[in-house]
């Protein structure tokens, strides 16, 4: 039996965001937008979903009078990502 892939992570943009955040300590919204080539609105929605799932922390502040959003992966996010990758690998191995 295949284990169901985590539906929160099994989405193109959310998976891209978590993959970026797993690599860095923290990242600004603009960095994530540039690396994923997503629109601001779309990215904002997906970041909120990840935040609600407890996978990322979002800190909003101001930098030089401009709003700044900083995202950071949580311990739960790291664990979910590792499980997701393990599930993917297991799935691919069985399929082969």
């Amino acid at each position: 039996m295949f284990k169901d892939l985590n539906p929160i992570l099994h989405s193109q943009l959310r998976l891209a965001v978590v993959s970026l955040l797993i690599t860095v300590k923290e990242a600004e919204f603009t960095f994530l937008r540039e690396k994923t080539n997503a629109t601001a609105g779309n990215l904002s929605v997906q970041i909120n979903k990840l935040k609600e799932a407890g996978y990322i922390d979002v800190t909003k502040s101001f930098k030089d009078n401009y709003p700044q959003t900083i995202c950071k992966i949580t311990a739960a996010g790291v664990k979910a990502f590792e499980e997701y990758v393990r599930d993917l690998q297991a799935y691919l191995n069985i399929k082969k």
Partner: protein
Amino acid sequence: MDQESELTSEQSLKLIATMISRAKNEFYDTGLSALLWGSLVIVCSCLSYANHYLDWPVLRYAWWLMVVAVVPQVFISVREAKARRHKSHRDDLIGGIWISFGIAIFLFSYLDSQMTIKHDASIYLTLFAIPTFATGYGRRFQPMIFGGVACWVLAIVSLRSDYPEALIPMAGGALLAWFVPGLILRKRYLAAKRKHVQRP
């Protein structure tokens, strides 16, 4: 990027690898720090070399410029930290290496002034190479890897030279380890900046 796209397992793994690679290869450096220290060491080495023959009292204090340069360095570091859009674990590590290098070099300068260590230029060059090589290696930035190795080679050259000729490899080390990589980083930074400005 469309978040509603149905992903296959292969596509998911490919996406993860692509994103990790994009984040890993990203680093922010204006090149100003490398240019500042590279040019200062070159200038101070040349002034000390010239002063061996000129013997101008004021030139004996040339190396104090290194202490003065800490002020613009702090300013550059604060500005770069503010402009940085992401923080990586690797940047923390590299930052730690440069801070420990800064402390080690100033401590050694103090020891050198107290004890008049023979072949001090070769020790400085050996120290210059450590953070330079580590930064280049950590960032996969070849000019700094080459600069670090060049410093080690020049340390041997310096060891076999007498004062003031030993200052020439020192200037060469600063040129190859910091000034040239600094110019490359600066060029890369300005090109990236122009690209951002042009983007609609």
